[in-house]
C-alpha cells in the first residue's frame, strides 16, 4: 500500500463551501508515489472541486494539502512545516509543499503538480507545437534572461528553444500527433485534443499529474490507448497520477488505489478489488437502488 508507506500527497480534513453548498466535507486521503490513484464518485460528488483545491484554483475553506515533491510527506514534518507558517521547506522526510497556501501557478511551477481540465482547455488558436512550447514557459523564460537577453539575441535562448522543441516532439511522438504538430490545436478531433492536453501537462515535468476525466468522450480504441499511455507515464516517467474517471472499466484496469467520494465525503478507500466488493460503494455509488445493477456497474471491466 504505497499510499500508506510512500505518500506524496496528503489531503487532510479538506472542506470546501460555496455559499450554502458544502461541496467537500472533511475529506482526507493520501496518494502514493508511483501510483495511479483514481478518484471516483457520482456526478456532483465534488471530484473536480478536490482537483481545484489541490491545484490552487480554489482556496479550501478548511483543511491542509501537503505535497512531497521529493521523499515523502511524513505527518511529523508536515505538522512542523505548518507551524512555521511557510509554504515550502526541505524537511528530513522530503521536500514538502503546503499547496493550500500557494497560488495556482506556483503549484505547477514549483511543486510540480500539473493538471488537465474536464472541459478541455487547449490554446485553440495556437498550433499543437506551440501549445507544448508554452507549457515549457518557465525554463524558457529563464533561458531568455527574462526577455531582456532574448530580445537582444544574447544567451542560450535559441539553443534552449530547440531543446524545448525536441521535448515537444518526444511527447507528440508518444501521443501519435507528430504529423499534426503545425496544425491549430482547435482543429484536432476531440480524442486528439484530450491526449494533447495530457502531453502539454507532461511538458511541465510534473511529479503529480491530475487528470479530470481524460477518457470522457473517447471511443473504446482511444480509451485503450489512453490506458496504455497512463501506465507508461507511471512506469517510465516516474509520474504519479491522480485520475478522475467515470468509466469503471478504466478505473479497475489501471488504478492502483481508488478513493470513492459521495456528497463531498469519502465513502471508501482502497485497492480496486476492495472497492469492487465494498457493500457501501455498491449501495451508495451512483445512487442505484437495485443492488445487482450497482454490482454490475462497479464491477465493470473485471
Amino acid at each position: 500500500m504505497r499510499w500508506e508507506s510512500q505518500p506524496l500527497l496528503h489531503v487532510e480534513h479538506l472542506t470546501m463551501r460555496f455559499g450554502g453548498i458544502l461541496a467537500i466535507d472533511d475529506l482526507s486521503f493520501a496518494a502514493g508515489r508511483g501510483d495511479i490513484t483514481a478518484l471516483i464518485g457520482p456526478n456532483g460528488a465534488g471530484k473536480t472541486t478536490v482537483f481545484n483545491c489541490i491545484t490552487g484554483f480554489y482556496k479550501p475553506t478548511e483543511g491542509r494539502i501537503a505535497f512531497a515533491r521529493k521523499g515523502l510527506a511524513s505527518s511529523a514534518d508536515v505538522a512542523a512545516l505548518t507551524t512555521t507558517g511557510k509554504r515550502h521547506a526541505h524537511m528530513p522526510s522530503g521536500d514538502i509543499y503546503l499547496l493550500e497556501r500557494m497560488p495556482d501557478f506556483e503549484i505547477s511551477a514549483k511543486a510540480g503538480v500539473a493538471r488537465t481540465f474536464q472541459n478541455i482547455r487547449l490554446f485553440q488558436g495556437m498550433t499543437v507545437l506551440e501549445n507544448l512550447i508554452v507549457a515549457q514557459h518557465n525554463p524558457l523564460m529563464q533561458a531568455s534572461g527574462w526577455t531582456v537577453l532574448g530580445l537582444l539575441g544574447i544567451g542560450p535562448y535559441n539553443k534552449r528553444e530547440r531543446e524545448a522543441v525536441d521535448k515537444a516532439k518526444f511527447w507528440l511522438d508518444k501521443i501519435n500527433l507528430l504529423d499534426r504538430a503545425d496544425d491549430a490545436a482547435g482543429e484536432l478531433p476531440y480524442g486528439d485534443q484530450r491526449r494533447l492536453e495530457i502531453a502539454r501537462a507532461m511538458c511541465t515535468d510534473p511529479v503529480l499529474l491530475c487528470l479530470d476525466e481524460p477518457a470522457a468522450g473517447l471511443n473504446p480504441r482511444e480509451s485503450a490507448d489512453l490506458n496504455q499511455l497512463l501506465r507508461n507515464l507511471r512506469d517510465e516517467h516516474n509520474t504519479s497520477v491522480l485520475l478522475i474517471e467515470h468509466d469503471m472499466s478504466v478505473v479497475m484496469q489501471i488504478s492502483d488505489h481508488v478513493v470513492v467520494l459521495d456528497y463531498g465525503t469519502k465513502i471508501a478507500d482502497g485497492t480496486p478489488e476492495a472497492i469492487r466488493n465494498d457493500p457501501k460503494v455498491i449501495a451508495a455509488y451512483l445512487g442505484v437502488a437495485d443492488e445487482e445493477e450497482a454490482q454490475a456497474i462497479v464491477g465493470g471491466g473485471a
Partner: protein
Amino acid sequence: MTAAPPRPQTLGEKLPQALRETIIAALIAAGLAFPIIALGAEPDINNQLALQTRWSWVFTTILLAAGARFLAFTLETMRSRFVAAAGLLCAAFGLGTWYFAGVADPLLIGGTIVAGAAAIALGYFIDGDADVAPKKRTTVSAQDDTSTALAFIGIGVLVAFPLVMLFAFGEAGSLKWINNYGVQILIFVMLGWGLNIVIGLAGLLDLGYVAFYAVGAYTYALLATHFQLSFWICLPLAGIMAAFWGVLLGFPVLRLRGDYLAIVTLAFGEIIHLVLLNWVELTNGEAGILSIPRITFFGIPFTAEENGFAATFWLEFSPIHRTIFLFYLILALALVTNFATLRLRRLPIGRAWEALREDEIACRSLGINTTNTKLTAFALGAMFGGFAGSFFAVRQGFVNPNSFTFMESVWILAIVVLGGMGSQIGVALAAIVMVGGTELLRELDFLKQLFGPEFNPVQYRMLIFGLAMVLMMIWRPRGFIATRTPSIFLKKRKAVAADLVGEGHG
C-alpha cells in the same frame, strides 16, 4: 455563448426567415423611432416651443432598419456578398446623388436604384439554395519567402519615399507628402503596433492607450524645456515613464475582464487627459507647453546658421531637411517597434501573451504567472506609445491636452481592429487606409462642384469611417488580415484560421 441557430439551407427556408427578421427589425425600429424621433419641439417665430411631428423621418428610419436587416441576412454567404455589395453601392450612389446634388434626373436615379435592387435580388437567389453550411476550418499555408521579400520591398519603398517625393514634387510640393502622409501615417502605424501588443497579442482591450502617448509627449516636453535634455536622452526616459504608467494602470485592472477592463482603461485615458488640463503648474493646462526644442541631427540643429545642418553638409538650407529627418526618425522608431514585437512573439513572454489571450486558466495551470504576463504587456505596449509620444512632441514643437483625447484612442483602436488583431502588416495597412484616407479627403475639392461650396469632405470622415467599420465588421469581422501566423513550426508554417483564434478578455 449561445449556439447559432441552424442556418437555413434552401431558398424556401431562407426567404421566410429573411422576411421574418426584416419585419422584426422594422417593428423594433418603429418602437424606438416613435418616442425618439416622431415628436419634436422647436421654437417658433415667437420663440415658443411648438410641437412638431416628423412622420417622414420615422418612416425613413423604419425602412432603413428593415432594409439593413434584410441585407444583412442576405449577405451571409460569400458569393452573394459581392453581388450585394455592388447592389448596395449602386443604390447608395443613386440615393446619394438624389439627396445631395438634387440632380433631378429620375431616369438616372431610378435606374441605379433598380439596378442595385436587382443585384441584391440576384445575390439572394444565387445563394438561395447553395450550401451555406459553416465553412470547413482550414489552415492556409503562408508563404514565408514571399512575405520576407515583401517586407524588404516595403522597407525599401519607405526609405526611398521622401527622396522620391522630393525629386518629383520639389521642396515645397513634397512637404505635404512627406509630412502629412508619411510622418502622420507612420506615427499611427507605430501607435497601432504598440497597442497591438496589448490587444492583439495579450487580448486585453485597452481603450485608454492615448494616455501613454500623452505621457511620452509631456515627458519629453517637460524634460526638454526644464532641463534642456536632448531628444536622444529623453526618448528612453519617455518610454520608461510610459511603461511605468502602463504598470500603474495594469495593477488595478489585473482582475478585470472584457467590458470592465475596457471601461477602466477608458477612464484612465480620461484621467490623464484631465490631469494634463488641470495641473496647470506642471503642464500649463489648456495652453500646453510651447517652444519645445526642435529635433537636431545628433546635435546639429536644422537651422540656416553657420553651424546648422545645411551648412555642415554643404547643402542649401531648406526646412524640408528637418521634415525628411523626422520621417526617417519615425520610420526607424516604427521599425524598431515592429522588429521588437516580431522578436517578442518568438520569446516565451510573447507566447505567454498569446496563450493568455487564448485561455488564462490554462496558462495558470502551466505555471505561468499571469499577473506578470499582463503587466509586461501593458508596460511594453505603453513604452512604444511613449516613444511615439516623445516623437510627436519633438515634431510639433508644442503639446497641449487637445492632442490626447478619447477620439485619439478610438482612432488607434480602430486601426488595430481594422488591421486584424495581432497582425503587424494588417495594422500597417489599416493605418495607411485610415490616416491616409483622412488626408485624401482634404484633396477631394472637386466634390465642392457637386455638392456646393460649403461642402467639406473632411467633416464626413467619421461618418465614412463609421460606415466602413460597419461594413468591415460584416464582411471581415476579424480585420484585413485575420489569420494568425504561428510563432514556430516543425515542417511548415500554416496560418491559423481566424475563427480558431481567441479574442481575449474583451
